[in-house]
């Protein structure tokens, strides 16, 4: 096992998938010879040729529509959207077409071979349009899977599983961890099952739930809480659609408390959906209201990024409030 960063792990997964199946193509803005603005696709054009790894013209709508066409005719399309903030021009092709191809055609056609990879999230001083976390827009769309890895190991295994999944997947990559997160990653081919949460750390007093880059935040908060004698169970959701209700509910039944943390704004965020479901599943076990530590209900700001972010301190305060309730 080698220690590599998340970008290398993604590159590794893409290489393995493209080697294994020559009907797999990869495309997007600047992904060709240049290897993408973050260099996730470095060297792939050299390895697989310009027919299988190429720059597209600058049109997300076109990229997604093209992916639908390829996948509807038996190909696997790995499409990169340069920043998640720029996925919105493609939203019609993704939510009305990719998501509904199978359903609306009675499964005469499907686009299960699509994966949209896109860097998301803040904490990089990127301001408004290089920081958003738009996952909730996609979780409301039936027919799409939504996946968010938290480290290099997961990025590789979840990406390989997503590429081979028979449904269109929107794969959000936490860009602030691209280089920051370095860890042991097996060299060969492996997959991490979609739709399964991971219990990262066991605890008894409260369940902390997050995904992607916010996992680091709740782990830090849990360490602060441990110094106050509070034992946190930590869960990484990994797949948001479909999400693993059982693992979360089992944990909450044990701890009696739940805190959900995400970067996207509070209102309409995915934490609301989780809270409502867990409240139904675990009502009689809950010792305090389910707590949400999320972004503010504002667009993503530049200078007040720290203030906006659901950081470890805010999470720590919410843990204590939940314990005292």
């Amino acid at each position, binding site marked *: 096992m080698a220690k590599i960063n998340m970008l290398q792990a993604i590159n590794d997964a893409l290489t393995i998938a493209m080697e294994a199946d020559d009907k797999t193509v990869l495309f997007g803005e*600047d992904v060709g010879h240049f290897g993408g603005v973050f260099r996730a696709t470095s060297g792939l054009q050299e390895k697989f040729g310009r027919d299988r790894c190429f720059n597209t013209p600058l049109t997300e709508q076109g990229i997604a529509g093209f992916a639908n066409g390829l996948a509807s005719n038996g190909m696997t399309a790995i499409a990169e959207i340069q920043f998640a903030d720029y996925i919105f021009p493609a939203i019609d092709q993704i939510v009305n077409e990719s998501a509904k191809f199978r359903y609306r055609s009675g499964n005469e056609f499907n686009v299960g071979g699509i994966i949209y990879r896109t860097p998301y999230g803040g904490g990089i001083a990127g301001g408004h349009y290089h920081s958003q976390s738009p996952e909730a827009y996609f979780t409301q769309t039936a027919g799409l899977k939504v996946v968010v890895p938290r480290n290099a190991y997961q990025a590789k295994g979840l990406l390989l599983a997503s590429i081979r999944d028979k449904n269109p997947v929107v794969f959000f990559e936490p860009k602030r961890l691209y280089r920051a997160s370095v860890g042991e990653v097996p060299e060969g081919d492996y997959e991490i099952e979609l739709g399964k949460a991971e219990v990262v750390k066991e605890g008894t007093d409260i369940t902390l739930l997050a995904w992607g880059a916010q996992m680091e935040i709740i782990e830090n908060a849990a360490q602060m809480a441990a110094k106050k004698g509070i034992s946190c169970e930590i869960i990484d959701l990994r797949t948001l659609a479909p999400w693993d209700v059982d693992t979360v509910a089992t944990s909450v039944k044990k701890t009696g408390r739940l805190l959900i943390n995400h970067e996207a704004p509070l209102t309409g965020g995915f934490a609301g959906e989780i809270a409502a479901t867990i409240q139904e599943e675990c009502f009689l076990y809950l010792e305090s209201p389910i707590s949400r530590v999320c972004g503010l209900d504002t667009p993503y700001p530049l200078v*007040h990024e720290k203030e906006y972010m659901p950081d470890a301190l805010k999470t720590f305060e919410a843990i204590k409030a939940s314990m005292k309730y």
Partner: protein
Amino acid sequence: MSNATSTTETVHRVSFLDKDSLSIPILKILQADGTTFEKAVLPVIDQPLAEKIYDTCVFTRVLDERMLGAQRQGRISFYMTCTGEEASIVGSVAALDNEDVILAQYREHAAIRYRGFSTEQFMNQMFSNEKDLGKGRQMPIHYGSQALHYQTISSPLATQIPQATGVGYSLKMQGKRNVAICYFGEGAASEGDFHAGLNMAAVLKSPTIFFCRNNGYAISTPTSEQFAGNGIASRGIGYGMHTIRVDGNDMLAVLAATQQARAYALEHNAPVLIEAMTYRLGAHSSSDDPSGYRSKEEEAKWQQHDPVKRFKLWMMNKGWLSESDDQGLYEKYRQEVLAAVKVAEKLPVTHVDEIINDVYDTPTPRLKQQLATLKQHIKKYPDSYPHSAGRV
């Protein structure tokens, strides 16, 4: 007739057209040595206008050089230059009325400067301090000013294109003798918004100038991987739009084309497309390294077409500028920019209360409650929120 025009020629054997069937000339007025082509028809220009144009170019060069330096020193987080494209930007804005509305992409700061954006205002935006008109919400270079009729930059590409069509239409409805001008790169012209915006402008007769800076690259993607047709100009013609292609490194050609485009747009209540052929001499942005995708030789070749130098030679030929005036101008702006950096970086950032303003016209009760909770939290942990601590 619904579809074809009455002049459509008929043929009786299959005959296709290709991009070369459409020959689009390129307007050139200034030669490399600063003299004009023999038969060239000059734009309307006198010494004060030429001086203002040149002054803007020098300021922009100095700003770009100094701020890229400031970015490398870690004093600002991000920067983008317009080096090499000054003639396209300044030559076009100089043809406009001050109340014509500008919708820019992000590389057109020379245009807002031409309108009077002060050195201090540039710095306030780049340092996101409390005097930034945009209240510290966007990355450096996202300028905007209602007073200067320059709409605030938005990063998602091409969104300003159909908006410009709407702005142009509104100017017509309001009976103003003004046009909208919309800047974009040849990369952005691949977005759906480009096609929607141009088609609407042509059909709805919006007095709007669509100004494409065709500078050869969209980040690392060369034009050969961006479009296969005859540049962007052919699309203007395709949408039924008055169209011209100019040498984007030729100040006089851009000025002449834009002056006439404006007159045409007003007289006919119709859009015009200008495609300026130029070159992005610098990196895409301070986060980009062009050596990964293009050669030094290519860049060096384009250095020889430096639009500012070419215009300077013309001014000197006219006796409107001397070497020592020129050096004095650079020196003046170097000092001015440096002094402005020092002031701007010391000012505090926007107050934290601004985080909830402008989400709506007035903050909702829920936003007010979120701000109150946030301020309580900052009071408890002042060290972790240095921008706001001490001011809550």
